[in-house]
């Protein structure tokens, strides 16, 4: 991560009603104060997060061809086009996949010359569904506990539609 994502500073969402009635109302995800119950608070926060992510349906109409040079770049574009967050675990995996290429022969080739855009996007949605449907909030909380920057990979529930280009 060498530059900020648009949603990075919008981790906590207000409880105001959603303008899009098709989308479930987002929960308030409170910041947990650092105290003796901070671990319980983290588990509760992870539970609210996971319960919410589980409700978001995977988009079924996908026809866009999205050019991309990196996995995280593709993830970013998908969030903007489909107006959905991606799961923390998906964001982490995309980062790992970009790191995976460092030092390879094809390192500097644009990624969409190696993996076809349709296939790449389909791959991410399949993985996203796994993370939304099967992840345990206890597991999430244990990861967040040891990842001081986990907020950076927990998307705002309404990603900003900024012109980042």
């Amino acid at each position: 991560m060498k530059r900020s994502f648009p949603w990075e500073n919008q981790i906590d969402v207000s409880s105001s009603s959603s303008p899009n009635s098709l989308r479930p109302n987002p929960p308030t995800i409170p910041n947990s104060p650092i105290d003796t119950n901070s671990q319980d608070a983290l588990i509760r926060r992870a539970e609210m997060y996971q319960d919410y992510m589980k409700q978001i349906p995977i988009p079924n109409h996908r026809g866009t061809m999205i050019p991309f040079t990196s996995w995280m770049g593709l993830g970013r574009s998908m969030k903007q086009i489909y107006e959905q967050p991606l799961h923390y675990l998906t964001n982490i995996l995309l980062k790992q996949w970009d790191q995976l290429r460092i030092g390879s022969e094809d390192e500097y080739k644009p990624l969409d010359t190696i993996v076809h855009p349709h296939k790449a996007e389909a791959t991410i949605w399949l993985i996203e569904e796994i993370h939304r449907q099967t992840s345990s909030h206890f597991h999430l909380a244990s990861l967040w506990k040891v990842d001081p920057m986990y907020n950076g990979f927990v998307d705002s529930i309404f990603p900003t539609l900024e012109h980042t280009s």
Partner: protein
Amino acid sequence: MLVSDSETESDDNLSKIAVAVDGKQGEDEAKRSFSADEVARPFNSKQSVDRDALVKLAKKYQKHMQNKPIPTSRLNKEIMVVNWKGLAKTLERMYGQPLHYLTHKLCKEWDKSRFGSKNEEKPLNAIINWRDAEDTIWKVEAVHRLCTSPIHLAMLWLDDPTYHIFVNEVITAPSSSIK
């Protein structure tokens, strides 16, 4: 919050990997393998590893994996999917191909990430359609075969004493598809 120092990124990687290794300590999956020139041997300490040899082995491994084509036609045989690790092994058997070290690693992480979830006790195909599950494995496998840097792979292997289990399946018998 921004990780701009590559050394910092490397440290993050290693610390995460260390956690993964802890999770594996309780599992005894070691196979006995015959001695041979290219057989990867388990080791007990990072200090005893010849890093150059590990990178060379990773290059050979990655080259082998890169040359294996992903199956284009699915066998369309319904698979009982209880967990990801089981599915990965079933696919290896059905298609006669080894799956990448990183695909096995991800399957293990996906199984682990279900512990404590509300549908933990359900078999996986009660939640994820088995065709989607199989499709996911092959799409992920394609990423790992096509996009993995051997140097990065060797770095991961430094912290994983069990990597040889997967390497030996690919390099010791490259011309035959056992199991």
